[in-house]
């Protein structure tokens, strides 16, 4: 009986010591684990699923051949493509649009692409004020 009471009181004291230890550690030496977001930003991992990017080849030409595989495989059907023919009689995407408000960032489109024209970047700050600005057209997806 007395032994268990002493044990319980000792446990209470151990708890106090623990929190006081953290207090001094944080106040004097340590850095809190908090990331102060707008000032400190987290570096995303290499395979992070962020906003898409359309790539160009070495000559600066769009890699996309408008095969529409990405639009077909997309589970949330947020990719819209309109195809056309250019002066060299090649197929190209006249309109390439990703609706990021519907996109689930699964990355199937990147996996499906036969020419490696699509990539997912680490960009994750995608909030905006209007719905229109959440529609990413070809110009915005081809950004540097």
């Amino acid at each position: 009986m007395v032994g268990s009471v002493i044990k319980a009181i000792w446990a209470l004291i151990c708890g106090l010591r623990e929190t006081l230890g953290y207090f001094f550690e944080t106040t004097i030496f340590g850095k809190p684990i908090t990331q102060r977001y707008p000032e400190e930003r987290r570096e995303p991992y290499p395979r992070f699923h962020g906003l898409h990017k359309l790539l160009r080849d070495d000559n600066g030409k769009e890699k996309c051949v408008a095969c529409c595989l990405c639009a077909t495989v997309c589970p949330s059907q947020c990719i819209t493509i309109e195809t056309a023919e250019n002066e060299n009689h090649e197929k190209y995407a006249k309109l390439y649009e990703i609706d990021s408000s519907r996109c689930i960032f699964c990355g199937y489109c990147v996996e499906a692409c036969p020419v490696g024209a699509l990539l997912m970047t680490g960009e994750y700050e995608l909030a905006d004020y209007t719905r229109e600005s959440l529609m990413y057209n070809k110009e915005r997806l081809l950004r540097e």
Partner: protein
Amino acid sequence: MDIITLVIVWLKIDVVFITMLLVVAYLTWLERKVLGHMQIRYGPMRVGWHGLLQPIADGIKLFFKEDIIVDSANKVIYLLAPFIITVCAFASFAVVPFGHELTLFGRTIPLRIADVNIGILYIFALSSLSVYGITLAGWSSNNKYSLMGGLRSSAQMISYELSIGLSIIGVLMLTGSLSMVEIVNAQSGLWFIIKQPLGFIIFLICGIAECNRTPFDLPEAESELVAGFHVEYSSMKFALFFLAEYAHMIVMSAIVTTLFLGGWHLPFVDISSFHPSTLFGQLVVSLLPIGIFSAKVFLFLFLFIWLRATYPRLRYDQLMKFGWKVLIPLALFNIVLTAILQIVSVL
């Protein structure tokens, strides 16, 4: 009583009141900061340097919140309750001696608002009255959560008031007086924490329970009762409850300091026996006790926050069992022990 004495009393009340309000404001900052650091976080950082203006920002926010009076509430009691609890919390400080005396221009000003010969009874009377504030707030809001919070609070405070009252009897037996000033004077040699260690621990535990602080914060147990007795309060009325809680903490720390830690006394040195001739020396001798007293109070305020960061809340039946089956017998044992030791003249 001449007019200058009246002005001095009035000034003392003002200074104490404003100081308490400021301390309450910065106690909220301190609590958030200490809690944060104990959990390896920053705490407030945005408003001002290391969040130092945070209490002001919070105060402005609370002032401009919409003041809602619940339709089904009992209006009079609903409005009265926050004032009861705030007045009780602040008025308790009136009998606490926060320093020795101040000699200015040949006038000796005792550093306390009032020396009531039943000071300790006055404090317990006020702390019992503040139970009314909580219970009435819970009842008049007409909400099941706040009613539960109010009931729990009254049950808890009444049970712990018994042991808090019994735990100080040892001190009263040693002093032979109920006056706070007499109790402080009796500790100029040895503090009562040495003579009454058990009484001190019981008083401290019950004091935390009286303030409704963790681990005894059942009246406002967030996870079960939303916010407890003040669910339905908003804006400045909510702020008054907050103010009262922190003022209660300060008063409780001040009482523990006065009863067990020798008030404004330094250990082994009696400051009141010094009588320096220069004005500067006199000022130091009269203001140093205030500093000592504040430091001790701060120590207990830190302890309050420290306990909150460490311990989880007690279950309701554990709380009652602990109060009635452990603390009251221990307090009674302390009284008997003190009496026996006094008869054989050890204490």
